[in-house]
């Protein structure tokens, strides 16, 4: 499994290269742990659960809704 599409600095990737996540899909997704609504950060390509303090990555347009793969939010984020 490779991660070549993840690029968190956002400087090198053009927006055209990031596959868009379907709107309908975003509407029905919730945090798998808390079942609460997620915030979509389109620049970072992350879905953020404020309640679980986790950011789920979106890779190649696929939301990775696995707690093991999520990034823990920093303080104040």
């Amino acid at each position, binding site marked *: *499994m490779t991660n070549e599409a993840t690029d968190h600095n956002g400087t090198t990737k053009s927006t055209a290269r990031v596959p868009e996540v*379907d709107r*309908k*899909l975003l*509407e*029905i*997704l*919730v*945090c*798998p*742990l808390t*079942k609460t609504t997620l915030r979509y950060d389109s620049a970072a390509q992350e879905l953020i659960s404020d309640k*679980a*303090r*986790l950011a789920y990555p979106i*890779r*190649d*347009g*696929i*939301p*990775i*809704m*696995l*707690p*093991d*793969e*999520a990034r*823990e939010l920093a303080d104040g984020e």
Partner: protein
Amino acid sequence: MMRAVMTAPSHRIFDRRLVALRRARAAANFPAHAFLVERVADEIADRLGTVNRDFPLALDLGSHRGMLRDVALPPGKIGMLVETDLAPAMLQGRESLRVAADEEALPFRAASFSLVVSALALHWTNDLPGALVQLRRTLAPDGLMIAALFGGETLFELRTALSEAEIECEGGLSPRISPMADVRDMGSLLQRAGFALPVMDVDRVKVTYADMIGLMRELRAMGETNALIERRRAPLRRTTLIRAAEIYQDRFGLPNGRIPATFEILFATGWAPHDSQQKPLKPGSATARLEEALKNMDKP
């Protein structure tokens, strides 16, 4: 990295990371070993064909390489289909709406789907009742679930051969093949998970292989090898493996020299409750007297 927010129930049987890893490894070559998933997908499609309604938004839980969508779904009945798999690699290169998701922690809002289908994915869950409850909650009222999972008779020949060889050669026994749901248990699980009009049925598939090693190779290619947490750290000894293959051949071998392997597939069907569905009458709501009915029965 372990997360503090993750709860680890004490009754965990399967190592979900190992399950994910096995599925990820199997992803690239999976279509060559997908005959069981394809057969199940066809079966699910047949059942959907008999249901006279449309499903605007459907979920394929544990979609492997998308067999259900590609092979089988009746055209026109399903609006949008969301595919999930525990291993993101299984979802690579597909056109559909995809989400990497764990069957044990579903990331979908309640009442999202009018249909949930699942072809051979739920047998790896540690908490099957919990997974079923979560699935029922993702269904809109009057939504339909059709889930196929391996039942307890699956690979009984392999289980027998491995256990006997292990006792004989190593003087002990370790769990090699995962425990699986029983058809009777599944019916009551569906009911307890809140599904209305639950129906269970069973399909038994017998496949033949040249030998036990051939069977084990295919199980690995399917991503279905043992992921029991309590599995022994050491692999099976070579002598034990050879003895098991002999026992398999002696006990179950076919006249043509090949060996059979049984897969028992349980089909669980249920609906999210809705007022329009048939229900048993409330006690005391009868309009005819039992006494009258019994009297009428006596007449010739």
